[in-house]
């Protein structure tokens, strides 16, 4: 491997990609608080390492199903920031022309098969993407993302069993941020190691550090390869934390004193920067990772804001074939 694929080169790239998501989400937050974006918005600030690591090992033909906390997954999969922001702003140039909004947009042309506003509902869809791949010759892997709360949804249980029973190439990625919306997951289960459930379905399961893009890349990479080679589904539990509310406006009364300060020490930007400094990477390179991302997001925000509003004349189209 070359320096750019491993070591500090990879870390710098990961830092830039984490910043892209972080700054996109901060831009979304500003626009929501300013009233330009309306409606429910769920940010993934603090959880950026998952999408950055996982999307880097997917092939273009693979499928990705995300959740309403999906802006970061879309961006990491290659959906342009301007198209995401325009979607949230209800613009004609939005990735779905304003039909999806923050929580339910889809961009199949980028291999992003949609957010989902129903907890756990993407898992059955992912089965179908994998099933289709068995017949269409692509051998497509479906990566299905959901949170810890979704582990208590019947549809997710059905999907894990269905995928395991038929050896379907589905990688289930559970982003465990320790809160099922506003409620601690540990209070809603007896065994809070969610990856343990995989064994009951007869598949591999592993709890991993979800705040390190390199770890995510490595473990998701193995899971994707195994699934692609016929090894069946895998469950990965990415331990992470969101540094913001479940939605914008969440009072976060469930937080313990000092919790956010503790989480801040372990969030991806802090960790990557510390690792880069420990490796004696110049400050200018570390700053450039941020600045490149900031430049991209600022330009995207300007482009989105300048776009025309979605055309209400077209609102009745595409209900049926």
């Amino acid at each position, binding site marked *: 491997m070359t320096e750019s694929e491993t070591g500090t080169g990879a870390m710098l790239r990961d830092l830039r990609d984490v910043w892209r998501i972080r700054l996109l989400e901060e831009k979304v937050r500003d626009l929501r608080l300013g009233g330009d974006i309306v409606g429910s918005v769920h940010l993934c600030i603090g959880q950026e390492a998952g999408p950055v690591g996982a999307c880097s090992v997917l092939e273009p033909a693979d499928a990705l199903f995300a959740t309403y906390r999906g802006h970061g997954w879309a961006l990491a999969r290659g959906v342009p920031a301007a198209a995401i922001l325009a979607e949230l702003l209800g613009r004609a140039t939005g990735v779905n022309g304003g039909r999806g909004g923050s929580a339910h947009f889809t961009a199949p042309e980028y291999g992003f098969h*949609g957010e989902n506003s129903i907890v756990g509902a993407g898992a059955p869809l992912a089965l179908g993407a994998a099933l289709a791949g068995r017949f269409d010759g692509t051998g497509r892997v479906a990566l299905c993302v959901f949170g810890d709360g979704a582990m208590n949804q019947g549809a997710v249980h059905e999907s894990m069993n*269905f995928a395991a029973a038929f050896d379907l190439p589905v990688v289930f990625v559970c982003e465990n941020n320790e809160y099922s919306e506003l409620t601690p997951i540990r209070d809603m289960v007896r065994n809070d190691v969610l990856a343990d459930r995989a064994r009951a379905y007869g598949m591999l399961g592993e709890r991993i550090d979800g705040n390190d893009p390199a770890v995510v890349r490595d473990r998701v990479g193995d899971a994707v390869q195994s699934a692609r080679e016929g090894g069946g589904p895998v469950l990965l539990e990415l331990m992470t934390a969101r540094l913001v509310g479940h939605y914008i406006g969440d009072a976060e009364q469930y937080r313990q004193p000092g919790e956010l300060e503790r989480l801040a020490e372990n969030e991806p930007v802090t960790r990557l920067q510390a690792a880069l400094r420990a490796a004696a990477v110049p400050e200018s390179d570390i700053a450039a990772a941020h600045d490149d991302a900031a430049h991209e997001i600022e330009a995207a925000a300007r482009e989105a804001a300048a776009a025309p509003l979605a055309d209400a004349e077209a609102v009745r189209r595409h209900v049926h074939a």
Partner: protein
Amino acid sequence: MPETRKLSYGEAANAALRRALEERPEVLLYGEDVGVPGGVFGVSKGLRKQFGDRVFDTPISESAILGSAVGAAMFGRRPVVEIMWTDFFLVALDQVVNQAANVRYVSEGRLTAPLTIRTQQGTAPGSCAQHSQSLEAFFLHTPGIRVCMPVTAQDAYDLLLSAIGCDDPVVVIENRTLYHGAKQEVSLGGPVAPIGGLRTRRTGTTATVVTWGALSLQTVAAAETLAQEGHDVEVLETPWLDPFPWDEVLASVARTGRLVVAHEANRTGGFGAEVLARVAEAGIALAAPPRRVAVPDLRLPAAPGLAAAVVPGADQIAAAVRQLVAAG
């Protein structure tokens, strides 16, 4: 080349599935007991043997069945899945209403979900309240989902093929009391029609009766009785409920000036209410207030004697028409 064969309703559905699997390599057929057992009503009999892995059994997991079909349809397959009883839809409606119905609309047509969901419903002696419901209105209240209810063996063949050929999600609601009925002449192998349309079972001028599902047969029987009494009833049977033949129905009601809608679903919120509402909105002058013949708003009892007291039949339909005629 089209050929005619004598088939039961269930056998005709089987013939449609066989043809779809033969003609369209992208068709997959699966559901609970659909593969090796050939379906609890025998509708998919022999297809696993003929088509192998494209026909398979699944766990008892309706969300996984429906959701995987939506996902596979998004990726170019044309799945035909079975929900064994319409009542079982209710554990997995999310995948129909929140998922399948939104695929095309939200993606502005860049993704589609051409899946067909076969199910069966209706009342039958001894069936409990969780195996007797008529739930077509749930799907008709969901824009984006197409709905049909085959009545004849020819319907069972034609409508299923039209559904499979349709690029929208379609719910095909069969009726288990019809599966093993008398064999009928069925024309096989002809061109597959687009979805939609209606069947005028009988023309008449006294009143229009609009009906679908198993009550169609009761309505035809009622119309024959009424004809002997000198009441010439127009019977419009609508195997396709979405798209619904509004123009034809409204034109008929405008001609006859009297309307009865007969269905096996509960009265409140049933699709009959929508038919009456559209007639009212169209400003059609009626000689008498329109009537619905439906199951009253209660749960369905299992005992045959109890069910018979609340499930309408030809007598109730005929009585409704007589009341309209008497009223004006």
